[in-house]
């Protein structure tokens, strides 16, 4: 099944919380280097879908494959897969008791077993990538939301993941901070990182995504490239959702 560079395969994922069926069989493939944006109304299972991919939420049914190996039903090996699937959260979830650089290096040392000196060097390099090296010794509480999110991106990057999941990375940020985070993400996408992004930032989705998935009621209702989504008449529902969006907003 590993033809033409498929790095991640999500097959028929179902998930219910009590009586509420949040995901009703979601299937898609991700090609290496691709950026996919998930858009759609709140509460349609976008975030749950991301969490099912690295099994932070256990799907009821379906399977996830990373580079030909099954992530679901992997038992204790899940921690090995999670190292290869980075995740960036809406509320950053930086470790409050650690400085920015310690946040980035801790998993390298404790999970990867890297020696502290190399880990520090790598962590600094990742912080530099997101423009945060000058803030290395600051604690999360001393950072703005945008800075904190950039550190959390560096933390995910440090593990050299095959794919990074972004769960509404800018929803807690004001427009200015949003921009600084999106710029970092755009840079990553252009550098060939495989990214799945749940977002409401249509400008970002249209200018960076290779594919946009419109989700509603636990299903992928419509999908296509940004151009298709904007021009093609079959994407009626998606266009209604976006409303009067003007593509020239995309930077």
């Amino acid at each position, binding site marked *: 099944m590993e033809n033409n560079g498929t790095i991640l395969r999500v097959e028929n994922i179902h998930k219910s919380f009590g009586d509420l069926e949040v995901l009703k069989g979601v299937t898609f493939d991700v090609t290496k280097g691709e950026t996919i944006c998930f858009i759609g109304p709140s509460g349609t299972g976008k975030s749950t879908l991301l969490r099912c991919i690295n099994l932070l939420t256990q799907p009821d049914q379906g399977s996830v494959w990373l580079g030909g190996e099954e992530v679901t039903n992997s038992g204790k090996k899940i*921690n090995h897969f999670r190292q290869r699937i980075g*995740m960036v959260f809406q509320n950053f979830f930086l470790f409050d*008791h650690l400085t920015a650089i310690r946040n980035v290096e801790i998993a390298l040392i404790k999970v990867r077993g890297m020696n502290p000196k190399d880990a520090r060097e790598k962590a600094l390099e990742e912080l530099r990538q997101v423009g945060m090296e000058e803030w290395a010794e600051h*604690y*999360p509480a001393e950072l703005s939301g945008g800075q904190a999110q950039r550190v959390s991106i560096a*933390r*995910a990057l440090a593990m050299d993941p095959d794919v990074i999941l972004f769960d509404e990375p800018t929803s807690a940020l004001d427009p200015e901070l949003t921009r600084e985070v999106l710029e970092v993400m755009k840079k990553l996408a252009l550098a060939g990182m495989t990214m799945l992004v749940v977002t409401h930032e249509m400008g970002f989705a249209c200018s960076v995504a290779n594919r946009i998935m419109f989700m509603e009621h636990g299903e992928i209702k419509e999908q296509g490239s940004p151009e298709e989504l904007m021009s093609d008449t079959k994407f009626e529902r998606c266009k209604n959702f976006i409303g009067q969006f003007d593509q020239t907003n995309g930077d």
Partner: protein
Amino acid sequence: MDQSVFIFQILLPVLMEGMVVTIKLIALTAPLGLVLGILVAVGRTYGSKPISLLCNGAVAFIKGTPLLLMLFILYFGLPSVGITLSAFVASLVGFIMCNGAYSSEYIRGAISSVKEGQIIAAQALGMTKMQAVRHIILPQALIRAIPGLSNEFIYLIKYSSLAYMLTVIELTGAGKMVAAKYFEFTEVFMIIGMGYLLLVTITTIAVMLIERKVAIPGMTQSGRNMLDIL
């Protein structure tokens, strides 16, 4: 007899010996009690059902019985099942159990105050649950538990005098013997009281220094304690 001769040549040397025993008891109990408290708190919060039940049951038992009774069981009761502990060791075991049980309550509370996102983020990086607890949850919880734990430490200083009931001649016991021999109760007990007060004061200042040292921006409420106010 001259009062100053009594105090300086008879009472204080004996009290100093007792003080050494008291400090030994405290110094051995505190770290072991803390370790026990951490293990029990983690067992109660993250352990499997049997472990959690066992830890909860043990804590409930220790909290629900007088410490003195526990000491009597350890010292006078256990020999009947073939375990003989010296008075000092029996006191130590009792104190560690008591300190551990109460410490586990403070630590458990602090663990549940750590935001859930912290453990989620740790797991998303590939940490096992136990790695996340050890490297992310506990360091945060312990910082938050310092005020409670220091309180427990202060209790320990004072209930260490119960060792006297098992014939361990610590500070209180030493003083009691001098007092009974020379019939000088008021002075002796007041001086003993000052001894405990001194220990507690030193502890309080030490805790303030520790709190200031480990204060982390955003984690500890403004990081201000008595030292900063004075």
